[in-house]
């Protein structure tokens, strides 16, 4: 049964590789004229579950005290057994659906053996023979190319080991050991480092939007290995090299562009062979270097895990996951456009949204888009997006805060927008109120706060107050008043500003101008 699976994979994928190679028209790249670059990616994304893949202990953040979240299973104590966390399966199914992959009704878990101090059991549980999903794709915006996803498999993360050269000891932290990972393997469908970068960015956005992963490369919740080969256009793909441990999209691009492609081209041009090998990347030198050749590749002695029965899913279950799928980025973007938002507003909202905290176990968390959606229920979306992008985001930025730190609830913001729209406070007073509310976070409604602060727009019964402010301003600015009387219209603006300041924005500029004109008899 296992043998069938193993033999089954290879011919099919080879077929795909050739096909893709033929189908894509090669485009000359000025950086390496006369050469074509073929790139495939293996991405490991940490599953955003509260508990680990096979144990009850919690997953950990980066800054937690070492070895805090370690159960006897995580530390490979004898007598412990794995128990699959169904949340990890659900989140992987979301990712598989979002990547248009076929979910397999039967998948299974295998052990991959090697000795390393951060791998307590001496093996990693993975899905070598029968992965949970196969055959999907990500559509790049650049050139409308589809990058095919070969398979998605669930596996365990390792712990971390750090070597202290001074004391000559290695420290082991098992907080991460046993955290669920999705390994997402692409076909070699990318033809430039820029396409590879876009593939990763899209993958990050997709995984985040469905709540499957943080997808954060800097924090290590998304890591990638890159397969690179070069060939003359029209020829078969060259021998590939794998570059491991790239810790950011930038360094991936640098590794390919500045080093690996030219290394391989110069080998071929000098009549030498590119050897299939695994390479590392030295960021300081911007150079890849050999880690091990194919001949030195370890034999992982894959074996079906006898403690884990096959994972059997039924259509009903899969459909249930599909029916509760959060919106994907492309869909969100289309929807926002259809609500009348400009390209720019949509981009701003979605960029801010991408920075939201991804909740555990598929809880989506409040992002900028959800905030916008809640606010635009019963309100003009264009007015709402203006308040969010111009006023709220602007003031947050001035305070050096991110959207995640926004203390103003949907109810408060909605109330504020309504106050301005209904003329109960002026636009200027509304902005003042917003600033006040950001400085003094509370749950008090905006209308109540506006009243307490005396920011309500001046009513017609209060016209004497406006007259007083105008007179006060005229008296305080005698030369400007004189000039105005003589017909200098520009100087009136100065007087209007003065009145506005005195009124703390409770009157709008037009009304002030009218009142001043009456008093100055112009």
């Amino acid at each position, binding site marked *: *049964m*296992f*043998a069938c699976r193993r033999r089954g994979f290879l011919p099919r994928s080879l077929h795909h590789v050739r096909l893709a190679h033929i189908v894509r028209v090669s485009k000359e790249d000025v950086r390496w004229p006369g050469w074509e670059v073929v790139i495939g990616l293996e991405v490991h994304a940490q599953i955003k579950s509260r508990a680990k893949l096979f144990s009850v202990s919690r997953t950990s953040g980066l800054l937690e005290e070492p070895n805090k979240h370690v159960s*006897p299973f995580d*530390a*490979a*104590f*004898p*007598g*412990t*057994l*794995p*128990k*699959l966390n169904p949340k990890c399966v659900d989140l992987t199914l979301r990712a598989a659906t979002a990547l248009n992959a076929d979910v397999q009704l039967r998948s299974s878990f295998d*052990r991959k*053996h090697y*000795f*390393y*101090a951060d791998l*307590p*059991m*001496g*093996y990693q549980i993975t899905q070598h023979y029968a992965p949970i999903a196969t055959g999907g794709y990500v559509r790049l915006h650049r050139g409308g190319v589809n990058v095919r996803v070969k398979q998605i498999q669930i596996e365990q993360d390792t712990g971390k080991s750090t070597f202290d050269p001074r004391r000559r000891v290695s420290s*082991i932290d098992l907080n991460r050991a046993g955290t669920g990972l999705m390994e997402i393997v692409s076909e070699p469908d990318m033809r430039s480092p820029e396409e590879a970068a876009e593939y990763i960015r899209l993958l990050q956005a997709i995984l985040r939007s469905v709540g499957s992963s943080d997808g954060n490369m800097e924090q290590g919740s998304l890591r990638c290995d890159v397969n690179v080969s070069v060939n003359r256009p029209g020829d078969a793909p060259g021998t590939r090299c794998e570059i491991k441990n790239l810790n950011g999209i930038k360094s991936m691009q640098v590794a390919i562009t500045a080093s690996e492609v030219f290394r391989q081209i110069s080998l071929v041009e000098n009549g030498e062979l590119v050897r299939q090998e695994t390479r590392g990347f030295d960021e300081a030198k911007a150079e890849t270097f050999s880690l091990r050749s194919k001949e030195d590749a370890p*034999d992982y*002695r*894959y*074996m079906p895990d*006898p*403690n*884990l*029965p096959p994972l059997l899913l039924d259509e009903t279950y899969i459909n249930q996951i599909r029916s509760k799928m959060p919106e994907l980025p492309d869909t969100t973007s289309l929807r926002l456009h259809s609500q009348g938002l400009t390209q720019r507003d949509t981009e701003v909202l979605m960029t801010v949204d991408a920075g939201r905290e991804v909740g555990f176990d598929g809880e989506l968390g409040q992002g900028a888009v959800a905030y916008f959606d809640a606010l635009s229920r019963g309100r003009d979306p264009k007015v709402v997006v203006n308040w969010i992008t111009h006023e709220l985001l602007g003031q947050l930025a001035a305070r050096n805060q991110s959207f995640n730190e926004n203390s103003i609830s949907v109810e408060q913001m909605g109330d504020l927008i309504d106050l301005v729209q209904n003329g109960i406070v002026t636009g200027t007073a509304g902005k003042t109120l917003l600033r006040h509310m950001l400085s003094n976070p509370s749950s008090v409604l905006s209308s109540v706060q506006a009243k307490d602060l005396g920011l309500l727009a001046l009513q017609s019964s209060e016209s004497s107050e406006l007259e007083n402010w105008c007179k006060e301003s005229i008296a305080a600015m005698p030369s400007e008043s004189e000039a105005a009387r003589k017909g200098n219209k520009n100087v009136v603006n100065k007087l209007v500003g003065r009145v506005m300041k005195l009124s703390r924005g409770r009157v709008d500029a037009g009304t002030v101008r009218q009142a001043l004109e009456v008093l100055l008899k112009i």
Partner: protein
Amino acid sequence: MSVCARAPFRGLLKKSATSRTFSPNAGSTYQQAIESKNKSTNAFVYLSNSDTPPAQCSEGPLHGLPIAIKDNICTAELPTTCSSGVLQEFTSPFDATVVELLKQAGGFITGKTNCDEFGMGSLNTHSIYGPVVNPFQPSSSTAPWDDRERRSAGGSSGGSAAAVAAGMCYAALGTDTGGSVRLPASYCGVVGLKPSYGIVSRWGVISYSDSLDCVGILAKRVSDVGNIFNILAKYDEKDLTAARPCSRRKAESVCREAMDRWKGKGKLKGLRIGVPKEYFPSPLSPTVLAPLRTLLSSLSSLGATLVPVSLPATPYALSAYYVIACAEASSNLGRYDGVRYGTRVEPPPGSDLRRTADVYAHTRTKGFGREVQKRILLGTYALTADAFDNYFLQAQRVRKLIKQDFDKTFKIPNVLSTPSSLLPDFDATSPTTSGVDVLIHPQAIRTAPPLSPPDSKSESELDVYVQDVLTVPASLAGLPAMSVPVGEGEDGWPVGVSVVGQWGCDEMVLRVGEVVEGLVDEARRC
């Protein structure tokens, strides 16, 4: 209960035996037996030093009864070392589910019993604590008990079998991967049950070969084994290989249905007993055959039908078993690296520390005994890319054939391999179902072999494995199998008979075992 000490066993034993304060359950016959017989049998490697244990035990069917636990089943209050150098001083942070269930039922965990290292062996000679000596002494022998003939207690659960046989506990838990409960039971003259795979939780049982490992029960009487079985046969969600409650219920119902049709005075009319011809291999000693023949004719006279059957895949079972068991062992034992717990051997100064495996090698070379190292190496080879298809996959195919052999032979359907839609059609009385209810065959190819002095090569290494021919097929198929004493061989040493049933028919195996026991009792009285 408190742990004796985390001192090495040898020191502990001396202290336990001479200490005046060491008087658990003083006066009980079990305790007296421990004091007088443990030293000579080497059955217990750790003993609880609790005073008057029953007072601390919960109320329940086992209230205050002392139960011994094999040294590869985790206990939070006593060390668990698998009788291995690599786990010296190791105490688990938790109790195995089976230990928990025994305590809840009022049982008193009296100590940990000697075994072959990680359960690998058939004679209980591969132990860091030294071999277990069979407590049996033929009635014809006139030597003082302490000077009795030194024979093996069998393995790997030799300490558990010896502890029961010597009256040091009410019952004992062992583990059975390829016969490790049934063989020692046979050699020591006690009852030993390997339940159906998945019926008893493996949480807390230190893995040798996960797909084969079963917790087994040893006691003097079948009814005692049954008592313990009823306490342990509970679904445990911590073990994903545990049989689901629905499979248990289905198996129970088809099994009871079949038993309900047995009639007659001895209630054996309608019971069909298969005698598989492949279980009489050439190395089988004629001495074990006489008691078996007597038993079969008694069963027949009580109304049971004896049916000669054939399980043609049996000759391949032994190789398949060793490939699977060793492959899984090589994987399971990878964790003993000296980093987190257990023994650690520091690499000597100047060692090459660049590769992790080279650092671990020092601990693993010193910590593991010879037999364990041998099996790890065999298993590692079987899993390498070049050998995988010819060894591991081939062994899995054989395993499937073995299961099919059994399913064809039994009248009762295997609820795990039969679609549930087909089950209601099953009719135990139907003339077309010509299968058998249980199989009966010799448990061992001989009586307990003498313990050879250390390092002597009196027996060829392969002979040790030949014995397993009679026990591994039931392990590969996950079937319930029980060894029941049927008398003595010509040398006066105990002989056991094996009763094997369809998956989930543990109750039937126990019931037939009880009949066997009754017949043997009767024969003794005459």
